[in-house]
């Protein structure tokens, strides 16, 4: 090679080096790598160093490229002189090969296929699901939010290694699933939001800008979750809803050696979350009797604020409906009128009352000011003392004499007081304006104004319930019988109109959760006797569906002990609740020892789900209430195939007809029933626990509920009885063909409708400003079951655990040393042997 040639090549190499150095600097200094930043760097926006590097990059790579091309061309031409065809041929061939290689791989990068060869097809979505997902239009963003801390525990224990291992494993599975979805199509965009990653805040801000509701969802997330965002909607699914840890099974697995057992809730739940993202949030109506008992009540023991919070966090809308309106006072108590008010309406009433009070005060204050001004003018006037005294006497109607001293003093007084009053007035005027504004804004709400116009109770309640998907009725009753802390039943009683609206609500297929405590009221008490008690229309309604509400309250032996040892007060509000034994979940019928003999029944689905939740925690659930009410499901004429009870008390308790202390029996005590007790042998016989205090069932609606003519016919049976028409009017009609023979007859097959009901024998189990995790679990799972969203209930259909190979210590040892040492050593020896053999002739 000539020296010139060498020089050119060295120049090319230098250019290459400069280009590389420049590129390194640029990559390090520039925030991002795109056209704009590059141009900016060229123009010196990022400083001289960067500018120099940009030049180096362009010049360096340019020179290197030119030299390479020239060299290549020269080589080509040189080759052209000799056997040119083949020489060029080779170069061309190599170039073609490179192009082909790159082309094939680019194509494969863009269009590829994955085959899942696992035995259980772990990495493929079912075809139906795939089909559904394919229908999705628009982009869904899936955010994997890693909170880096295990989920809120159901018990007070700190997270143990099972929880941590579960978290780690589930994160991996989520990532796999998310990859699966990403592979599925471009309509899924996946973002990982890791709290411990740098740049987390920036990422979060960016995402919140795109999806405003994300902010609230993330704040409310109690555990690492998967968030589905599309348009304006955000749905959250906790990791534990995807793979639930079964701690009890984990501890017991492999003959007690332990394993990690996770219950796969199925990718269907995941997919449904995506598909239902645009769905309206279900709305839950909560029927309460008093503003204190509503979700905006201010008193801690009674408020349902925690309920609202939990429901909202889990994707439900909440509407309070108050059944009473305050219309005055009656003696010591309040006079209430039955109504159906939304919270806003109730607030409107309150605002109106406050407004009128303020206005009244203003009138009085203004009059006072007037008066003072008058007096001041009088005292200041040039009139003589005598004339002033005369005027005063005329004003006040008695003889008043003021001298110059008193006059001055009065002026000073009045001058002092006037501004005070004026400022009071100003404040009250401000308050008046605020209240008026509030009043205006409330009135402006269509629902409020519409509601005010509707005076018919039934229509009002029906209207309020029409856009709700579920109804919760909460009746807190007994709180502490020893001190008579009881909410009177009269407060909770519903009007006939109320009941009618509720009946139609249920008849339209919507579910009801009834939380009602015992209705036992203190005997020999005037107040309660006056207000009237006994089962109200709603309880009768529920009896029609087969719910039997015992007229008793359950007392625990532990409570009786406390009474006996004079530690009654410690059991009061806020203290001692821990000594009450916890309730238990169950999925089978609770033996009652009564007449009804239990048959083989399928387990209660809600109970099953809740038992699984318990297994996740690895310990019994912690749900304690005082004075629960036993409930039974005994429908007439229907064979029960699925167990109804899901919540029960422990054994050490009994059902007490009168939970209040009396003179004869100041300490409650379990007395076995006497032989002549009429209730003996029935469901309500006095006996020891356990008692079912929570039932969930699907009731067959009586035909009269949705076919009024049936009800009419039933009623007509009692009319027009005569010896020739023993069945009353209906038989008369049938005999004379007045109406079709089957009109008004209810048949089992015709239009059978069902409704799901959950009843819990306590009205205050979810009161308080914040629900515990156990209470929340019970609430949300019950609601999911009620709304027919069975797919959201935890199940154990797919169990996952680490594979295990049973091996004894000895076997393990032999395998270990055998492979670790045996194999390499044997091959090394083999090598030596071969070497030796080769050496022989």
């Amino acid at each position, binding site marked *: 090679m000539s020296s010139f040639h060498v020089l050119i090549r060295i120049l090319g190499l230098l250019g290459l080096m400069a280009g590389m150095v420049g590129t390194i600097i640029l990559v390090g200094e520039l925030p991002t790598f795109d056209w704009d930043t590059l141009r900016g760097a060229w123009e010196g926006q990022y400083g001289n160093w960067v500018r120099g590097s940009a030049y180096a990059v362009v010049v360096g790579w340019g020179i290197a490229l030119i030299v390479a091309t020239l060299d290549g061309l020269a080589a080509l031409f040189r080759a052209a002189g000799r056997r040119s065809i083949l*020489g060029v041929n*080779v170069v061309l061939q*190599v170039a073609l*090969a*490179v192009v*082909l*290689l790159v082309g*094939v*791989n680019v194509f*494969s*990068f863009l269009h*590829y*296929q*994955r*085959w*899942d*060869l*696992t*035995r*259980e097809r*772990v*990495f493929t979505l079912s075809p139906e699901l795939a089909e559904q997902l394919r229908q999705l239009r628009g982009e869904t963003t899936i955010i994997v939010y890693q909170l880096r801390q295990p989920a809120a525990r159901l018990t007070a224990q700190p997270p143990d*290694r*099972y929880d941590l*291992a579960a978290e780690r494993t589930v994160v991996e599975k989520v*990532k796999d699933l*998310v990859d699966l979805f*990403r592979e599925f199509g471009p309509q899924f*965009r*996946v*973002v*990982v939001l890791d709290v411990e*990653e740098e740049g987390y805040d920036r990422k979060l801000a960016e995402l919140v800008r795109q999806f405003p509701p994300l902010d609230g969802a993330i704040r409310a997330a109690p555990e690492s979750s998967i968030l589905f965002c599309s348009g304006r909607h955000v749905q959250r699914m906790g990791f534990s809803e995807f793979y639930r840890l079964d701690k009890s099974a*984990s501890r017991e697995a492999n003959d007690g*050696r*332990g*394993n990690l057992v996770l219950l796969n809730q199925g990718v269907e739940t995941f997919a449904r979350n995506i598909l239902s993202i645009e769905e309206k949030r279900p709305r839950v109506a909560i029927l309460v009797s008093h503003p204190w008992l509503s979700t905006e009540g201010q008193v801690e023991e009674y408020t349902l604020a925690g309920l609202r919070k939990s429901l909202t966090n889990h994707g439900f809308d909440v509407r309070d409906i108050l059944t009473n309106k305050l219309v005055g006072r009656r003696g010591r108590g309040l006079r209430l009128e039955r109504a159906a008010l939304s919270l806003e309406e109730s607030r409107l009433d309150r605002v109106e009352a406050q407004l009128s009070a303020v206005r009244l005060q203003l009138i009085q204050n203004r009059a006072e000011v007037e008066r003072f001004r008058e007096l001041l003018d009088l005292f200041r006037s040039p009139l003589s003392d005598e004339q002033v005294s005369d005027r005063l006497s005329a004003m006040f109607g008695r003889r008043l004499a003021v001298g110059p001293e008193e006059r001055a003093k009065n002026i000073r007084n009045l001058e002092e007081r006037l501004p005070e009053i004026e400022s009071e007035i100003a404040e009250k005027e401000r308050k008046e304006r605020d209240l008026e504004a509030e009043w205006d804004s409330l009135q402006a709400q269509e629902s409020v104004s519409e509601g005010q116009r509707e005076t018919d109770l039934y229509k009002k309640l029906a209207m309020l319930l029409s856009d709700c998907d579920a109804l919760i009725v909460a009746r807190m009753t007994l709180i502490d019988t020893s001190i008579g802390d009881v909410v009177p039943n009269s407060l909770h009683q519903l009007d006939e109109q109320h009941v009618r609206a509720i009946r139609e609500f249920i008849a339209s297929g919507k579910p009801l959760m009834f939380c009602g405590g015992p209705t036992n009221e203190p005997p020999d008490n005037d107040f309660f006797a006056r207000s009237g008690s006994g089962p109200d229309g709603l309880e009768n309604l529920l009896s029609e569906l087969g719910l039997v509400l015992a007229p008793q309250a359950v007392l625990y032996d532990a409570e009786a002990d406390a009474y006996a040892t004079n530690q009654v007060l410690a059991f009061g509000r806020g203290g001692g609740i821990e000594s009450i034994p916890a309730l238990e979940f169950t999925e089978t019928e609770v033996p009652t020892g009564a007449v009804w003999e239990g048959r083989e029944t399928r387990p209660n689905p809600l109970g099953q789900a809740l038992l699984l939740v318990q297994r996740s925690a690895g310990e019994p659930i912690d749900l304690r209430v005082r004075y629960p009410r036993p409930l039974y499901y005994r429908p007439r004429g229907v064979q029960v195939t699925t167990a109804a009870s899901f919540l029960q008390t422990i054994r050490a308790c009994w059902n007490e007809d009168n939970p209040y202390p009396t003179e004869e029996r100041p300490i409650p005590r379990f007395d076995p029933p006497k032989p002549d007790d009429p209730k003996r042998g029935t469901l309500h016989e006095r006996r020891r626990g356990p008692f079912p205090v929570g039932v969930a069932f699907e009731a067959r609606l009586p035909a009269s509920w949705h076919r009024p003519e049936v009800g009419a016919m039933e009623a007509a049976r009692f009319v027009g009885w005569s010896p020739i028409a023993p069945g009353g009017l209906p038989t008369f009609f049938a005999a004379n063909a007045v109406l079709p023979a089957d009109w008004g007859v209810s048949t089992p097959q015709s239009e059978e409708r069902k409704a799901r009901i959950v009843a819990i024998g306590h009205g205050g189990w979810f009161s308080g400003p914040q629900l515990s995790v156990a209470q929340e679990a019970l609430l949300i799972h019950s609601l999911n079951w009620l709304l027919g969203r069975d797919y959201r209930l935890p199940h154990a259909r797919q169990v996952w*655990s*680490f*594979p*295990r*190979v*049973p*091996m004894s210590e000895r076997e*393990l040892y032999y*395998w*270990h040393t055998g*492979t*670790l*040492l045996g*194999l*390499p*050593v044997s*091959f*090394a020896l*083999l*090598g030596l042997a*071969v*070497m030796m053999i*080769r050496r022989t002739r």
Partner: protein
Amino acid sequence: MRATWTLIRREVTAYFLSPIAYVVLAAFLLVTGHLFYLTMTSLTARGPVGIEWPMRGLLADERFWLVFLFIPPLLTMRLFAEERGSGTLEMLLTAPLRDGQVVLAKFLGAWIFYVLLWLPTAIYLPVLLHFTDGRFQIDPWPMATSYLGLLLAGAMFLSLGMFISSLVRSQMVAAVVSLVLSLGFVLAAFWRPEMDTSGLTYRLLYFFSVPLHFSHDFTRGLIDSRHVVLYVSVTVFFLFLTVRSLESRRWR
């Protein structure tokens, strides 16, 4: 053709006649043995510890890839460099064999030895698959796909090593250069494992980094066409280049 087969036979025998093969074999089995032990521990552990995909225990480990990286260069460094150095290449190229046959035979010789290298690991199978009651208790398919991936990925690295060997005269240089170039396929995986998996950067990284192919797909029973296409196309490409390189020798 039979001539090719003769050359293949000689190549494979040559491996077994050289000490380096046994060193490689021993070191390799030592590493896999250790990893197998760790996997066994996970499969027999107490408590919430375990491994879901046993082959991952062997093939997703950094230690494995660090050792694996050395093997193809060590196996291929002698393929052409040695013959060049001792002059026997001349004898090979003056035999009535096409250049393509020579390259193919050498490649297959190396590849067959590579397969034989993996054969002893079949001993692990009864444990890793837990064969009882006439059935594999652990899914055997990931095992099959892992081995398939190993065969193809190995072919790729071997072809790369062979090409480098055909370019240089010294075996040492051939080995080192092959090692460095192979790094390109491996290093990317250890750079930022927790990166966001939706970006283009990650997708490109994933396309090239072989350890990720294994830890994500092959050891779990998934076959991704991208990986297979990459391995096969690169292997063919380097085989082609090696043939051209040999040809160009005649033009010197």
